[in-house]
């Protein structure tokens, strides 16, 4: 019954999306005061409620493990802990697509409910675009991926869930990325609305900005969490593999970063109008492409639950429709939109243009490296594009961008000379240069980590320079957001460079009682014991580890065997200190009474994810600052209106 209610709610929501689309289109033709136009906003709001009901129904059938629902029988198991039953609701193709439309409909309801800054015509066009995009996803769900499908004969037991995915990482990672993707879809709808009505104004950028910021924060968190998850779950200490699925989340992030900066210029300076619209289209295209890559089964990995060509073609069709349509609209309308205010190269806008172009170039490189092997495979030529390609080619664009990023926030809007900032520029340059020389002489490291470490130090200092000479209490929250996000980039860069330059690895075969050394750590294998969990058995290695002869502590990494479905995983143990992590993995026995251990000492590796968190924190601060300003402005406006009516009454 509950499953049927979920399905019915989904159909009704799809019908409301049609109404939303029609209402918006008719409003554009017949004026915003007609009866139909008045329905657009309520349709969007009601639709959000219905989809939430539908998603609630899915959570419910997973929570009670209703094995007559096909999706539950395929992906869940009565023995799983409740939290993984619930997260299993979206740890599969159908459920994850339902999660996507849920977030999208809720976002649509939110803009329909509260966004009143823009001209009503632009808003109607925006909501129509939002309804149109949502409609495609409803069709996809209802026609080819119904999550509520029943089995004629209820299953006796569920088939379980990939044990690699039975992890708290799964509970958090896909939803955060989806929030990001959907936020970009809202930004896209705004861009389409503005294009249709030719109202590319600072007000439009201000309405769009919170959504970009929110999407960007979620993407940042999703990528950071996904990277940490791969790091501790895969058991080899790698945190980024340039896997197409990882790239699928990185590309929207790069586009959103560029869009964010471009929209800021539009909001405060009324410049870069066409750039902003184009980046809005590109950012959403990248989220669609990401969904396509991950969901179509074109890549074979734990992420590709749906190996079903019909679904792949459906998503490809949606991709072509939305992206093609948006690009066509852009091509037709972009000429009618003027460039906006002009500025000189040595200005903050100038620096932001460099940032935008560089980010777009990095995006193009990642896109190329991701799609090229797929393209050649279609012609039966298999090419491997991996870290040895992405790292240096990406760096060609990344390092110049980072250099501009260090300087840009120091410049004034519109027109500035570098002369005003000689001291600061000299400081950044000196830091960079001395870092390069010092690290090269001391450690003789490879070029990329060397550049990375020196740039990270220079950037870390440079990111705080915009605060120089200002009263810290008077600095707006959003400026703090920028400073912290830029500082986060420096921190993450430091972590990456340090991991690549200073990591030490030790593969050891030890008898019980044997000791070994990795970096400053000494490790003793005390005993190897069998352990059993709810749906797995494991070999657990009890070890004592001591840093630099200090107080020893005990760790127990495991090598686990799941039985439904059968699969082996490693449960690595990480010992975190402020200056890095010890990474310990239990291997198998080496057939001579000894046990294999894999150990790494990774100095400052944690900075990668601290950096990611700082970047997200910066985004949150910027968002809070912007929203607060907007609320204040609304309040002032309302008070002004009240005053005016009072005055009129008095008169």
């Amino acid at each position, binding site marked *: 019954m509950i499953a049927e209610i979920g399905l019915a709610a989904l159909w009704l929501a799809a019908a409301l999306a049609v109404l939303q689309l029609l209402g918006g289109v008719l409003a554009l033709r017949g004026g915003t005061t007609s009866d139909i136009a008045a329905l657009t906003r309520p349709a969007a709001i009601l639709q959000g409620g219905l989809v939430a009901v539908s998603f609630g129904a899915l959570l419910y059938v997973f929570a009670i493990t209703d094995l007559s629902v096909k999706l539950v029988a395929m992906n869940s198991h009565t023995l799983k802990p409740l939290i993984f039953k619930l997260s299993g609701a979206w740890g599969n193709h159908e459920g994850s697509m339902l999660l996507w439309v849920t977030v999208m409909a809720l976002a649509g309801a939110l803009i329909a409910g509260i966004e009143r800054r823009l001209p009503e015509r632009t808003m109607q066009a925006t909501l129509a675009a939002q309804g149109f995009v949502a409609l495609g996803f409803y069709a996809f769900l209802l026609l080819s991926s119904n999550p509520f499908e029943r089995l004629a004969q209820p299953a006796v037991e569920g088939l379980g869930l990939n044990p690699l995915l039975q992890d708290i990482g799964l509970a958090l990672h896909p939803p955060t990325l989806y929030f990001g993707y959907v936020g970009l879809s809202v930004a896209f709808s705004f861009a389409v609305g503005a294009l249709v009505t030719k109202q590319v104004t600072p007000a439009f950028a201000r309405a769009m900005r919170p959504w970009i910021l929110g999407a960007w924060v979620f993407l940042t968190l999703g990528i950071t969490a996904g990277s940490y998850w791969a790091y501790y779950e*895969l*058991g*080899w*200490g*790698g945190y980024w*593999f*340039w*896997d*197409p*699925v990882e790239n699928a989340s990185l590309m929207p992030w790069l586009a959103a970063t560029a869009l964010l900066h471009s929209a800021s210029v539009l909001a405060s300076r009324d410049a870069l109008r066409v750039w902003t619209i184009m980046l809005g289209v590109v950012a959403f295209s990248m989220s669609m492409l990401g969904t396509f890559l991950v969901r179509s089964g074109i*890549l*074979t*990995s*734990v992420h590709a639950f749906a190996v079903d060509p019909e679904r792949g073609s459906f998503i490809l069709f949606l991709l072509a429709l939305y992206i093609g349509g948006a690009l066509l609209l852009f091509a037709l309308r972009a000429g009618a939109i003027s460039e906006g205010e*002009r500025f*000189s*190269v040595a200005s903050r806008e*100038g620096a932001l*243009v*460099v940032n935008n*172009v*560089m980010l777009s*170039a990095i995006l*193009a*490189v990642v896109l*190329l*490296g991701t799609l*090229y092997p797929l393209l*050649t495979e279609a012609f039966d*030529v*298999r*090419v*491997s*594009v*991996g*870290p*040895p*390609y992405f790292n240096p*080619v990406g760096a*060609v*664009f990344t390092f110049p961008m980072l250099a501009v990023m260090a300087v840009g926030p120091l410049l004034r809007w519109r027109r500035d000379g570098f002369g005003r900032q000689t001291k600061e520029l000299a400081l950044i340059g000196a830091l960079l240069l001395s870092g390069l020389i010092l690290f090269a002489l001391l450690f003789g490291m490879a070029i990329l980590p060397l550049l990375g470490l020196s740039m990270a130090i220079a950037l870390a200092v440079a990111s705080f320079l915009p605060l120089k000479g200002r009263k810290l209490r008077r600095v707006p929250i959003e400026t703090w957001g920028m400073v912290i996000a830029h500082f986060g980039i420096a921190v993450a860069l430091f972590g990456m460079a340090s991991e690549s330059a200073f990591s030490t*690895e*030790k*593969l050891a*075969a030890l008898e019980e009682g044997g000791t070994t050394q990795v970096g400053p750590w000494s490790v003793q294998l005390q005993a190897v014991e069998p352990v059993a969990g709810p749906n797995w058995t494991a070999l657990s290695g009890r070890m004592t580890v001591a840093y630099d002869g200090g107080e020893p502590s005990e760790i127990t990494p495991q090598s686990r065997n799941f039985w439904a479905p059968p699969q*082996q995983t*490693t449960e690595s143990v990480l010992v975190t200190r402020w200056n890095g992590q010890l990474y310990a993995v239990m*291997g*198998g026995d*080496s*057939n001579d009474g000894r046990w*294999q251990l*894999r150990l790494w000492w990774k100095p400052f590796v944690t900075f990668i994810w601290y950096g990611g968190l700082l970047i997200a924190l910066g985004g949150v601060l910027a968002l809070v600052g912007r929203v607060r300003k907007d609320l204040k402005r609304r309040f002032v406006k309302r008070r002004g209106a009240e005053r005016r009516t009072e005055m009129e009454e008095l008169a």
Partner: protein
Amino acid sequence: MILATMIAIPLAAQDGAPPAPYAYRQLDDPAQEAVAQELMETLRCLKCQSQSIADSDASMAGDMRHQVRIRIAAGDSPEEIRRWLMDRYGDYVSYEPVMSATTWPLFAIPALLVVIAGLLFWRRFRRRA
């Protein structure tokens, strides 16, 4: 040649057979191990999704690590080993980007991007220069 066929046998080993000796064991000489590690990070694990043989538990990756280590220990250069593996498994096994008839766009397009970026800046700012 006989040596080559002998050490090639573990590559054909079934899953479940014990891993080759150097799959999970480092070379005693740290300098040689560093060279081997660097090479392993640029060789693709053919049974995995986007992982190098240095990051994989797959038995085939273990056998390949064994091959790389014993050949480095025997004095082969990394490029000889890479060539040997590419002859057996095709170019697909190597992540090292090589310019060839099938891969030139990977290099031409970024170069083009640099030119486009340069042109964009030049057009945008020349009027005020």
